[in-house]
């Protein structure tokens, strides 16, 4: 890492989906729900993983696996809670890892070779010492946004 004192850093919450490590800026994460009970919603758009119960509210949670066309998760998933213009929403991920400090200087945009859908979902990646941390912007994961951007 070429992290220097001058390069601004930010804290990202690392989450794992399949073999990939993703990072979400921690400022966007309201709460992390560990393997909450979920309720599937029949006829929902494909990217909706189900409903989760969060502090008296019922949140719609987006499934990153479904969004990326992956197989269903083998085990119960964790949920990140974000705030969007349409209210709160959740994001299903396989598991939530540690909080990492990443430097803006280490950030690279999406490679041109990336498939279109991922091109639109990902916000580039940070180069960690031994691997890549794909950057996720909660804004791009809002259910309303997804419904418009990726209709079934």
């Amino acid at each position, binding site marked *: 890492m070429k992290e220097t004192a001058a390069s601004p850093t930010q804290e990202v919450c690392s989450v794992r989906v399949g073999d990939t490590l993703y990072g979400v800026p921690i400022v966007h994460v309201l709460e992390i729900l560990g393997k909450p009970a979920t309720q599937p919603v*029949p*006829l*929902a758009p494909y990217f*909706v993983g189900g409903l989760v119960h969060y502090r*008296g509210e*019922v949140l719609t949670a987006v499934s990153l696996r479904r969004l990326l066309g992956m197989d269903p998760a083998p085990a119960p998933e964790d949920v990140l809670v974000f705030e969007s213009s349409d*209210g709160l929403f959740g994001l299903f991920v396989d598991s939530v890892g540690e909080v990492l400090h990443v430097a803006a200087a280490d950030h690279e945009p999406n490679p041109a070779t990336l498939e279109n859908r991922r091109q639109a979902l990902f916000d580039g990646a940070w180069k960690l010492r031994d691997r890549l941390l794909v950057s996720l912007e909660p804004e791009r994961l809002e*259910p309303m946004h997804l*419904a418009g951007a990726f209709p079934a």
Partner: protein
Amino acid sequence: MDDLTREFLLESQEGLDRMERCLTDLETRPGDAELLADIFRSVHTIKGTTGFLGFSRLEALSHAGENLLGLLREGELAATPEIVSGLLSLMDRLRGILRSIESTGAEGESQQQDGAMIARLDALQHGEAVALAEPVLTAVAEEVVHAIPQKRRSGRKRAGPRNPQGAPPPPRGEEAGPPRIPEEAAPNPAPEAEPGPAPGFSNAARPGSVPAPPSSPEAPPASGNSAADSTLRVDAELLNRMMNLVGELVLTRNQILQATSSDAGFALLSRRLDMVTADLRESVMKARMQPVSHVFSRFPRLVRDLALGLDKRVRLEMEGQETELDKSLLEAIRDPLTHSIRNAIDHGIERPEARVAAGKPAEGLVRLRACHEGSHVIVEVHDDGAGISIDRVREKAVERQLVTAQRAEQMNEREILQLIFLPGFSTAAAVTSVSGRGVGMDVVRTNVEKIGGKVEVESRAGEGTILRLRIPLTLAIIPALIVHSRGQNFAVPQASLMELVHMSAGEEDPRIEWLENAALYRLRGHLLPLVFLNRLLQQPARERTDACDIAILNADGRRFGLIVDGLADPEEIVVKPLAAVLREIGYYAGATILGNGEMALILNPGAIAQNAGVSLTTETEESLGQENRAGHEDFLLVETDGRPAALPLETVVRIERIPRSRIEQAGSRPVLRFDGMLLPLDDAAASLAGADPEAQTTVVVCRDGQRHVGMTVSQVLDVTGGRQLEEAGTGALANGITLLHDRVTGVVSLSAIPSLDSVSEREYSLPGEETR
């Protein structure tokens, strides 16, 4: 803004609200000393506080008002409509300034207009001779204009009711006005504590609050204070939050109750927790309830202004003002009600001449009534005007291309009336300032349906119209039945649940009948369409022989059976909104968290019925046939004497298994006594020839125009959709035959069954019994 000013604003708003109510009342009882004292007090309080806070405009205005009111109170002046109008516009002006203080912190500058206002009030003080000599209701604005002509140009704002498009700040007759201070509407019985509430207009104090005794006119406003001391303003947001937390607490309690059933001591504690929680929930809900008078109180003014503006005479009666409704719902019905009242006065009530000509009192009546009905509050707007002309509605709807002329011809009265709720509908001959722009009734319906309510309309030509809003008591909590489908919970609102039928496992119930892919259930002789929840939601299939339950639902007149895997207990559920992407699915009205901590989706029976193509039944059975306009009709397929025959399904009233002995002979013809009527019977199955009087025979009772007829059949085979056949070559529709299951089948001609010539069926009707 400092607390003192904020407090002053709230207090003054309340004072003005009270003043508005009293002023409109004053017109009917001009000499009422208590009313006058109350109004005087409101203005006086404002004046007193403003001087202290340094709001000079408010002080000058309220001072002028106070002078005029002083004369009224002393009886030196009688409250003429001109004076009331003047005071009302003073009130508007005061309100405007309060609003300006609220938003900008300052009174704003318009001294000139204030001058005009004050001059008007002064003129009223001195011009009692003029005012008393000409107490003409309609001459309000003009009167004043003459009194102070030189101020007219700058003093536009105090225009009378004839000028509803006044310039801001305080728009006239403004009911759906800019948002008022949220706290102002918080449950606070203080405004109800007015001394000497007028009969028929009394804001009966809510249980728990102390109604102020009618005080003498001279009494200082102490009685108001004592009620105010026992109440507290609470931010509505905070109440919402509390409601949410209480919901959470209820869930946690339920989980604790389930977890701690083993330990006796703990069980006792958790039971107490249970009780406290239930009480708490109820209290929070109560805190959100407000009497409908909060909304009603603005209508006397509205009615007065509208009537004056339209040259009509209208009396407003209000009933059931103490009926309570959740605050958010109350807010939500404010606009629909205002619309409805406008409509009633503009379209409903006729001009006095027309009314007299029609033999009605010159003064029209608009009755506003609120009452509880089960878990709903009904709010009715009743006018005794001209009623809605079915023909005009039909005409207009065709003219505006809302329905085709052909369709309009076929519609019955009830359906025609529903057309007024279509967007863009208006029968007003001319667009008036009040209504006729084609927005209104559709907005009323949309707004009411948004909060889970319904709108009904009844109208009789020449007698008037009743518009009925059916509002759920509270948005937040509804009773629901929890059902299972493929391992998932769903909540069915109790409001639409009619009955439940259990189907045991192992056998396919013969009452479920299949027509291709569509299932029907025979409920007391009626065929009810069935909807399989798992199919509808594209869940995994189930075996036909599995046990299941049918929830028979009535969604806005559409009846159908919803097949689910099983039932759980009924529960009071807290409705949680769904994200927009899930609302779009349409079948879900929300989600909820059950007592056991699981989640459930709340089904929307109306949307399910609509999607499944369930048509309106019961009262609108006649219209059923018209739903199948595209040459497609449903038939009851029966076997008569070895041959299949088809009966149009919409004519079928009932299918009965009866012993032959019940069929009697009237002369040479068989008749059946059915529901108190005598039915002419067509023995199509030739089953009556048999000897055994106890043998069962099947009779299909059908409707043929106005009469009912019966037909014996050997067996009922099916219900199926048939297509009209076109004659080869000519393309003309063939009568009397249809294509069922790809076989040409004869359609029974019911009109061919001879009537009981001499003995009409009606004459045989038994008293007290009705045709079903």
